[in-house]
């Protein structure tokens, strides 16, 4: 009995103390808009626009730019808590469509009349990205900076495309991504919506060709999926790569990879998710980086 009471007192004491790491950051104290932004691309753009003072909370997956780690996080975007978000007293929550959960928490937030807002433009192409930048810039009244970002994007892209012309080959690329919600490895196909579309376009801009015909993301259930495609290069996004301890052998052990050209020639590389998976302000330079990677 006494033990139980002391445990409780101890817990109460812990409660009063600081949290740990990123989770313990005090929230921004600002006047005006206070937004919780649950989307890596929105956050990247907001920081690029210099509008980050309004952001009081971000999700766990938003990791760029590095300074963002100083902002309070509300957790993983599919496992949110209403109270947690609302404790930051946001005036709005910004997120890309249908990206957040669990559903009952969304209901709760809506029930408390906090607007959950998405921007219409999608960063599934260069044009889409520019539209998105402009929309977000308008929201935060940073229209000029927005235009500047768009111009930079265009010029960097043009420069990168020039560099890409230097390469004569068009390697067939398979991109392997680890889906955290479903807890499985996925392989990205040509086209399709959302992230998959973005990846495809990025690879194509970088002078490569998507090895897998089937659009969208598929689970790597059978070795045939990769084996039939027989990619020349395999890119693995950072989380999935690190999860296997960065071991090339372990990656070769994923279904179908072993027998591919990529494995035989040792052309298996790690790539940052935020460079490849979606278009954003840095995509212009990213094209060149990805091109360099796949043409090695």
């Amino acid at each position, binding site marked *: *009995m006494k033990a*139980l*009471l002391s*445990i*409780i007192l101890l*817990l*109460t004491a*812990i*409660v009063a103390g600081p*949290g*740990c790491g990123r*989770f313990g950051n005090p929230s921004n104290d600002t006047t005006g808009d206070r937004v919780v932004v649950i989307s890596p691309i929105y956050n990247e753009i907001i920081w690029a626009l210099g509008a980050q003072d309004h952001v009081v*909370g971000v999700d*766990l997956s938003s990791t760029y730019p590095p300074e963002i780690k100083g902002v*309070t*996080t*509300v*957790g*993983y975007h*599919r*496992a*949110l*808590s*209403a*109270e*947690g*978000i*609302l*404790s*930051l*007293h946001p005036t709005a929550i910004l997120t890309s469509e*249908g990206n957040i*959960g*669990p*559903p*009952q*928490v*969304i209901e*709760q937030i809506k*029930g*408390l009349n*906090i607007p959950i807002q998405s921007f219409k433009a999608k960063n599934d192409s260069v044009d889409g990205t520019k539209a998105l930048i402009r929309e977000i810039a308008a929201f935060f009244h940073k229209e000029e900076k927005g235009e500047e970002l768009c111009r930079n994007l265009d010029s960097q892209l043009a420069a990168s495309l020039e560099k890409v012309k230097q390469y004569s080959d068009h390697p067939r690329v398979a991109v392997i991504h680890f889906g955290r*919600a*479903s*807890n499985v490895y996925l392989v990205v196909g040509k086209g399709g919506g959302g992230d998959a579309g973005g990846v495809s376009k990025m690879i194509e801009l970088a002078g490569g060709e998507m090895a897998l015909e089937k659009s969208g993301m598929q*689970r790597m259930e059978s070795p045939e999926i990769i084996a039939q495609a027989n990619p020349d290069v395999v890119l693995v996004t950072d989380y999935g790569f690190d999860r296997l301890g960065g071991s090339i052998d372990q990656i070769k052990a994923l279904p179908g990879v072993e027998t591919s050209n990529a494995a035989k020639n040792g052309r298996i590389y790690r790539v940052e998710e935020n460079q490849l998976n979606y278009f954003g302000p840095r995509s212009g330079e990213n094209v060149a980086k990805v091109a360099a990677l796949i043409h090695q």
Partner: protein
Amino acid sequence: MANRPSERALSLALVAVALIVTAAAIRYGAIDFSFADISAALSSLLPGHAEPTIDQRIFLELRLPRTILCLFVGASLGVGGTLMQALFRNPIVEPGLVGTSSGAAFGSAFFFVLGGAFHFADAIWSLPLAACLGGVVSTYLVFLLARSREDGRASIVMLLLTGLAVNALFMSAIGFLSYLARDPQARSITFWSLGTLSGANWRSVCIVAFSTVAGTTVALRYSKQLNALMIGEEEAAYLGVNVNRLKWIILSVNVVIVAVATAFTGVISFVGLIVPHILRMMRGADNRFLIAGSAVTGAILLSVADLVARLALRPAELPIGIVTSAVGVPVFLYLLRRRQYVF
């Protein structure tokens, strides 16, 4: 066994602790409410007072139902553990380990993904019913497969192994359903396997409260018979117990209270294991005290776990299953090593 605290003293102590913990749970969280805040929030409900502010609404619509749901879910899991241990006559079983929770989770997931196709989806009882059906199937499977053919008693090894297998089966079935489902229709597998109280609302509180209170009341009626069962099925029969009927009733009550709770919170393991053990250490194995005591102790433990889940990384939340496993697994291993228990 000497120096046992009297039943009355212990009951009072448990209730007192429960009140303290509940008070802490209401006060602390991503937002800390002072007692003044709380009374203001409550008075805003009275006619003539101003509309509640956002923070007050958070208290009334999120914090309060969550705290109360936590008490009832904790009670369900505690009682579920006690009943399951009495039924299987083994102190190292609990609903999470022998498949009830995962079956219930599967039933619920099934309801979310495919229930729309069948037109019964909207009745208030549909979800809990689906969960119960899932829980019944999985528990019955384990119960049936783990029994020895000689004396009908399930050895601990068989129970744990069968439970492991059935758990794996149902969790992979949930994975399959996630695969079929259109996002955001399906809840992610993390929700089901690690549990969370974040979805609490007054509706779920009512449903779980009802099943917990009803189930516990029924179970209490059979506490004497469950005691008799502890010295064996044959002995219990000679003491006038209808053993088959007892087993079916207790199994049903057990599954219902755990399944209904699981439908709203996902799988929360180890509470049912730890709670009866703590009580037995304090006051021995008499089911008359154990069942009621487990309800209160389960409520306490889960509330503490939820408090930790909400505060450790605030304003983000840990899935509560992580907290209960972090405490529960060492306790489980410790129990396995103690040779006091007969295998």
